[in-house]
């Protein structure tokens, strides 16, 4: 994010994805991949009776160095590795385990806690979309069916670029994008009249959903 915040490494996965297909950036892409393969979030053996229900021992990726692994940075890193032919790498397989462990009992994902002190937490469309995108084709569809169903409802409801963008990418990766996706994208883009111009990354995400009807790993621009 900034030279004085080298611990905020989360944009690495996005950069690696962006450098795919750009031969001029092969060196940077390679260094980014190595970095992603070498780093994990903090994880520890799950304690009996712990207030958090998820398996804290599964290695994934964090937003910031030396913190716990969470859903979205793990999903982004998995996408970056998959886009570079590393679909069978142990880190991707660990990521699959982590994401499946963090799937909420009623379907969907949030930032990465499932139940705390016995209460199931709320889900969020952007987290769910990113997780489904990363898992596409790697788990049986029956195991993520409730999440797909939840996200199909959300995709028709939300009109903000991050939530809609990830919802469509996640559904598209499983061949479940709603037919009206172009209209939903257009309506979301038009809401800049109300809120002012979206920041570049949010606008790019929702436009990417338009360019990638089958998900981020099969982009056609």
């Amino acid at each position: 994010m900034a030279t004085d915040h080298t611990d905020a490494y989360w944009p690495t996965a996005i950069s690696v994805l962006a450098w795919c297909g750009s031969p001029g950036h092969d060196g940077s892409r390679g260094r980014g991949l190595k970095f992603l393969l070498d780093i994990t979030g903090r994880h520890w053996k799950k304690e009996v009776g712990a207030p958090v229900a998820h398996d804290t021992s599964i290695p994934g990726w964090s937003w910031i160095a030396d913190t716990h692994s969470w859903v979205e940075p793990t999903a982004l890193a998995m996408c970056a590795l998959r886009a570079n032919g590393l679909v069978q790498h142990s880190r991707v397989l660990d990521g699959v385990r982590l994401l499946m462990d963090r799937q909420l009992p009623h379907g969907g994902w949030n930032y990465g806690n499932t139940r705390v002190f016995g209460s199931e937490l709320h889900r969020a469309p952007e987290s769910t979309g990113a997780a489904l995108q990363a898992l596409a084709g790697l788990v049986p569809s029956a195991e993520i069916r409730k999440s797909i169903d939840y996200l199909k409802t959300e995709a028709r409801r939300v009109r903000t670029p991050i939530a809609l963008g990830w919802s469509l990418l996640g559904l598209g990766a499983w061949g479940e994008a709603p037919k009206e996706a172009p209209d939903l994208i257009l309506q979301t883009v038009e809401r800049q009249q109300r809120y002012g111009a979206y920041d570049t990354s949010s606008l790019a995400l929702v436009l990417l959903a338009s360019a990638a009807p089958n998900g981020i790993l099969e982009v056609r621009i």
Partner: protein
Amino acid sequence: MSTSQDVITPERRAWTRREFLYALAGGIVLASGVSAGRWFFGSHLRSETFVAKMNGYGGDLSGVMINGFQELGLSSSEIHGKRILLKPNLVETSQGAPHINTHPLVLRGAIEAFLRLGAATVMVAEGPGHRRDTLAVYEESGLADVLTEDHIQFHDLNYITGHTITNLGRQSTLRTLTFPALFLEVDWIVSVAKMKTHHWAGATLSMKNLFGVMPGIYYGWPKNVLHHAGIENSILDINATLKPHFAIVDGIIGMEGDGPIMGTPKKAGVLVMGRNLTAVDATCCRIMGIDPSKVSYLARADDWLGPIDERSIQQRGETIASVRTNFSLLEHIPAHQGVRLA
């Protein structure tokens, strides 16, 4: 509004028999290693909080706040020309759970109140802890409708340029803290929090609310850097370094039980305000039936960031006793154990 009379003034001329006995007991406490002065007089720091009864969100919130400002000695000459940043508690949204977040009409009331006192600008800013789509939280919480109608700017603090400064609290191992650079452009930061129990911290009020100012791009979603540094340490560090100017706590409908997200609505029917966040939070705790001295971060803030001792907080407006309503605490949550106010 009534004004509480049960305030101990610091200046005393002669000792009563009761005070003599207190002093004697104080000597015994001193002998056991506890500060007698602090035990006897309460915190060295003094502050005032204002409590207003509010039956719902439909009343004249700005009028009540202006009354509170007056009670607290906050004048238009102090606010005139200032740029005010209001920091609500917007964590995430869920259908049927508006009690997670500061009610939008409380923010509208605060905006109107500060503008009526002559503020140059009032803006609202937040970096939700659980959702990356801040715009979705802004919209689904109902805040977007209010601020759009009122032509008030909202800033997403999660995706914002940072300004790194030395951590003045020094409770955690974090040597620096990165706040939004936007804060360099405002004069006052006001924590407009929600009155809620919290399953890690005991209670989340105006001090804990400031977790939300730390940008997600530097601290993550959730703001896990702060969790690993210790939630209580981080609350103290942020408050000691940022030095916020004012607090307004929305306790009209708060949250009890498994807060800050999964708890149930609790109508406390109050707005609590003050210049000192520690004092405001201590008063809120008492209203919630929680002993602030048993809430670890408040106990540690006592006599440093502000007072928590009831004798050190002048109570304006309603008395605590007249509005106290015990918030449910859960036995299986360690942060809730043993904190009930006698």
